[in-house]
């Protein structure tokens, strides 16, 4: 249990975005319009909104995979936007990211993919010869056990199923021993059942390690199920910020536009209804998440 206590004792900075703006100069398109909010340490936030609302751009601006045009990303006492490339690399070591289409290196083994989470800590020669410190390898085995992939250590990443690949992606992000987790549409390429398993796994791991997390997700029911706070984006602007239970029909209409939410809700419900032998069977466990 020593490890868990360590996680509890660790100092966790808070994340504060201030007037974060992203404008694509060439097209004149404003992807983010002056977004400000604060994430408390250990909080799990779901970022919802229609596609094109700027969700992906927002989380990529935090670790600067996308360069913001203006504004601040205050992480503890540093502004990530002001860092030079060496400082940014050091800061990124503590920010894990999980991707929509897993973003694994297909031709590397599962273990190599997981170990790539430690690249910020080893020098180039060590990483080229794959000589990672034994404690990193121990941690990698532990994480692979935790996400249920201990049998696949030496399999190539492209030999795995979608759910398994996302588990590798999760292990890679946690391998960084991050303080902040950025999660970009983790379930967009997965079927409904696997989606829920993956979301549950991410939620559990965040709570175990007291991680601050921002999760982009287009699936509103899943967002309500796993996040304690929800932020809604529309056309690059912040239009909702509050707990899941305030996310009522007219708020969703504001975010997603004039879609009939009764019908959409029905559709979402149908996702969790399985048809067995021609008779609809309602899976109560899954239904619970929708309430």
């Amino acid at each position, binding site marked *: 249990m020593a490890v868990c206590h360590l996680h509890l004792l660790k100092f966790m900075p808070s994340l504060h975005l201030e007037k974060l703006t992203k404008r694509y100069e060439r097209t004149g398109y404003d992807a983010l319009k002056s977004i400000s909010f604060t994430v408390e340490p250990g909080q799990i936030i779901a970022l919802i909104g229609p596609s094109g609302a700027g969700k992906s751009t927002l989380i990529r601006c935090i670790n600067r995979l996308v360069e913001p045009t203006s504004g601040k990303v205050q992480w503890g006492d540093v502004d990530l936007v002001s860092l030079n490339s060496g400082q940014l690399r050091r800061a990124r070591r503590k920010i*894990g990211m999980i991707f929509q289409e897993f973003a694994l290196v297909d031709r590397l083994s599962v273990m190599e993919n997981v170990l790539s989470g430690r690249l910020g800590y080893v020098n180039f020669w060590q990483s080229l010869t794959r000589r990672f410190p034994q404690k990193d390898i121990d941690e990698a085995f532990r994480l692979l056990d935790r996400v249920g992939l201990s049998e696949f250590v030496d399999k190539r990443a492209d030999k795995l199923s979608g759910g398994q690949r996302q588990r590798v992606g999760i292990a890679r992000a946690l391998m960084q021993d991050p303080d902040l987790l950025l999660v970009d549409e983790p379930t967009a390429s997965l079927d409904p059942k696997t989606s829920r398993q993956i979301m549950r796994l991410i939620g559990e791991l965040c709570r175990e390690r007291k991680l601050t997390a921002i999760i982009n997700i287009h699936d509103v029911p899943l967002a309500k199920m796993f996040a304690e706070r929800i932020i809604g984006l529309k056309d690059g602007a912040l239009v909702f910020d509050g707990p899941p239970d305030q996310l009522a029909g007219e708020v969703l209409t504001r975010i997603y536009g004039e879609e009939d939410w009764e019908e959409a809700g029905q559709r979402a419900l149908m996702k969790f209804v399985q048809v067995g032998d021609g008779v609809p069977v309602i899976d109560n466990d899954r239904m619970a998440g929708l309430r």
Partner: protein
Amino acid sequence: MSVASVNGKREWQRYDGKQGLLRWVLWLIGAAVFVWCWQKISAGTEWSFVLDAPEQGADILGRMVPPEWSYARVLLRPLWDTLNMATLGTMIAVVLAVPLAFLAAQNTTPSAEFARPFALFCIVASRSINSLIWALVLVMILGPGVLAGTVAIALRSVGFIGKLLYEAIEETDHRPLDAIASTGASSGQIISYGVVPQIMPVFAGIAVFRWDINIRESTILGLVGAGGIGLQLNSSIGNLDWSRVSVILLAIFATVIVSEWVSASIRKAVT
């Protein structure tokens, strides 16, 4: 394609008036240019020689058979040299082309202002000059022999391998690269974990493919004195020793076919 309505009947044509006209004009220009080219060629040709060709051909063919089979033994050493020029040349080219390709690829170049144009220039210069011309120049510098041939092959192949490789690097999936960058990896680590595994099979394929082409090219470098079986070919033709020429041609033919087969099966195995 157009549908026009004339007197209440619908007519269908493959192309409408303007399109059709444009096509005819283009064809006409092409034909005119061809006729003009042909006249130029024809003006520079001694037609009596050309008309004479079947007779000449029959004569040469008659002297080619039967091939002087015993000469084949002498060819083993030149063939070995040919193989070495192609193989060593390809190896040198690979060593030079890999860094050039990383400098030239948009997503891995350290500087788009200096390194990239420089690398692209090297690649283009190497590619536009045929290995025979490289050999011609190198024989004057290094003297006749296998070395000039090896370097000629290498210099020509750098551009070929470099071009295909940098295109492959530019086509890599950028998502894993983003993921690795987000862990705080340095650019060298992003290349070794993200780019290299993705281009490995393509790279092996390109190298083997170029080796196959190089075998074919190194058979003729001897014509300008750069070693290999081309030397024997040149002297046999010079001496009008047609029964030996046929043996040499057969040897070249066989070598090329074998190397093509080897390269095809290796490429099939790696992808």
